[in-house]
């Protein structure tokens, strides 16, 4: 027990140092920001995939809706950063409720296919609605206004802002999964019949979990729009939906910290590959195959078994 507590403190210290130093450890500062943005996305995705046991293959929809919602709010409505991020989350939640309601009609593998199909629907709506979204040119000219007295225009300052949001998201994510609600989700994942027999309504819990994870995805999307000053159409695309699954799986689903590490490593690796070679999609494909075939339980679980037992 004492050993465990010591590990925990060591973990927090290492984590804090890495977070504070990250912009200086990677090739350019915005990359560190992008790594944390996908880490926020992965925290939310782990709630639906790892803790609820539902594989959504359409979460890019919420990432993208958050990005478009925040971007459009900043362009047309407000210069308040929290309000714009809130609008992005609101947009994603409003879409996630009916989409989750319909998707949770089906379980298992169908859930993946149905969420994927709905995400494509949203992708094509954004593609067609050029006057609002810019179509396949993406949404140009998203400003990055200052947050009260803090000027976010420098990449370094923006990194620390995203870091603060990331820490809040991490604390919130851990609180959600340790709450009675989070316990109920895990009970439903492990044995739906038993959880139902003690009075939990699985569809209600699955829907709430779906909406919560959509909210995290949208928060990440909004931060992404401000980072890039731009919302690309591919933020709603199938590649992002697949990548978030890979990040969560590589890190170790159902561990929260694992997907965070998975997301940060994959964003880093992808950036490295795309700066080195044109054939990086092929290498990403190989990465999928290798990670599913070899360390499918996730790096955190593999490391835990080897060093902390």
């Amino acid at each position: 027990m004492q050993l465990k507590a010591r590990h925990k403190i060591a973990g927090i210290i290492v984590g804090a140092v890495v977070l504070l130093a990250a912009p200086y450890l990677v090739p350019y500062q915005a990359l560190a920001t992008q790594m944390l943005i996908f880490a926020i996305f992965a925290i939310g995705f782990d709630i639906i995939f790892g803790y609820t046991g539902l594989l959504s293959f359409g979460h890019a929809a919420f990432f993208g809706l958050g990005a478009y919602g925040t971007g459009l709010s900043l362009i047309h409505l407000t210069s308040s950063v929290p309000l714009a991020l809130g609008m992005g989350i609101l947009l994603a939640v409003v879409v996630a409720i009916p989409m989750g309601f319909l998707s949770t009609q089906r379980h298992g593998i169908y859930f993946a296919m149905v969420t994927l199909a709905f995400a494509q629907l949203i992708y094509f709506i954004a593609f067609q609605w050029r006057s609002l979204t810019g179509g396949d040119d993406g949404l140009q000219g998203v400003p990055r206004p200052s947050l009260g007295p803090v000027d976010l225009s420098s990449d370094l300052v923006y990194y620390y802002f995203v870091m603060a949001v990331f820490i809040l998201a991490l604390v919130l994510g851990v609180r959600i999964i340790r709450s009675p609600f989070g316990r109920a989700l895990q009970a439903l994942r492990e044995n739906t019949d038993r959880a139902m027999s003690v009075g939990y309504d699985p569809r209600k819990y699955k829907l709430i979990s779906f909406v919560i994870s959509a909210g995290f995805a949208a928060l990440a999307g909004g931060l992404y729009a401000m980072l890039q000053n731009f919302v690309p159409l591919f933020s709603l695309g199938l590649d992002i939906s697949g990548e978030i699954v890979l990040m969560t799986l590589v890190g170790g689903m159902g561990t929260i910290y694992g997907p965070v590490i998975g997301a940060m490593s994959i964003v880093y690796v992808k950036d490295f590959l795309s700066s080195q070679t044109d054939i990086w999609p092929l290498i990403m494909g190989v990465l999928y195959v290798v990670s599913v075939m070899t360390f499918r339980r996730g790096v955190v679980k593999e490391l835990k078994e080897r060093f902390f037992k």
Partner: protein
Amino acid sequence: MEPVFLFSQFFNGLVLGCIYVLLSLGLTVVFGTLGVVNFAHGALYMLGAYAAYTIANHLQLNFLACLILCPLIVAAIGMVLEKLLISKLYKLPHYYNLLLTFGIMFIIQDAIKIIFGPEGEPFNIPDLLQGAVNLGFMYYPKYRLFILVVTALLSGGLWLFIEKTRLGAIIRAGTDNAEMADALGTNISWTFTLIFGLGAGLSGLAGVLAAPIQNVQPAMGMDILVQTFVVVIIGGMGSIGGSILAGLVIGQILTFSIVFWPPGSTTLIYAFMALVLVTRPRGFFGRVSFFE
């Protein structure tokens, strides 16, 4: 609007539907028997089209040779993938194979892009099938009629194969009752490989047939994959009749939305899927709690 125009659009919808029928039949048979949602299915379709392009343009063989060779080539590639990778994950939750095939899709797509370049390749309608046929009430392109006939024959042949042969009996056992396929155990691993090859071959054939009417390009598989998923969700996963009916319905929706409301051509099928999910969650002919 002229009735002849509407008729020819209806036929175009049928032809497009045929491509979806061939694709979704392969997907549904593989899913029903092996429990694998094959994300690489679209990539195999694209491989079929590129195989046809290579055989016709570089080896100078005729279209009949393409029709026979390409499905076999794609089936062989599918069988190698199944033997080396996919079969190792049967005992794990479904999503591992889903992610694996998702990765395979990227590899195939990018490899084709590297070899053939990102822009499309032209593929001409074979000489023998050029021109139009007089159907009495309208003229219709020969090649499109050919697709209708091939799909009808093939669906009939597949039905006979599934009803009358031993391999077909295993597919029926799998699609009728998921536990039944499990109960057959792993000592029939070659049968599973053959079934995966059959699914891959069907998508390869769909690729060859589609090559002359669509542009042969690396992204063609990705574009059609999700639409094929919609077909099997609507038809009912694992149901052969459902795949045929839903494929034809989706073909009509796509074709007529292009005529009457072009922006809907990419979105209406998903709205239709939502409608089906609300009114009949299991799809046209799907069974309750099948592979859930």
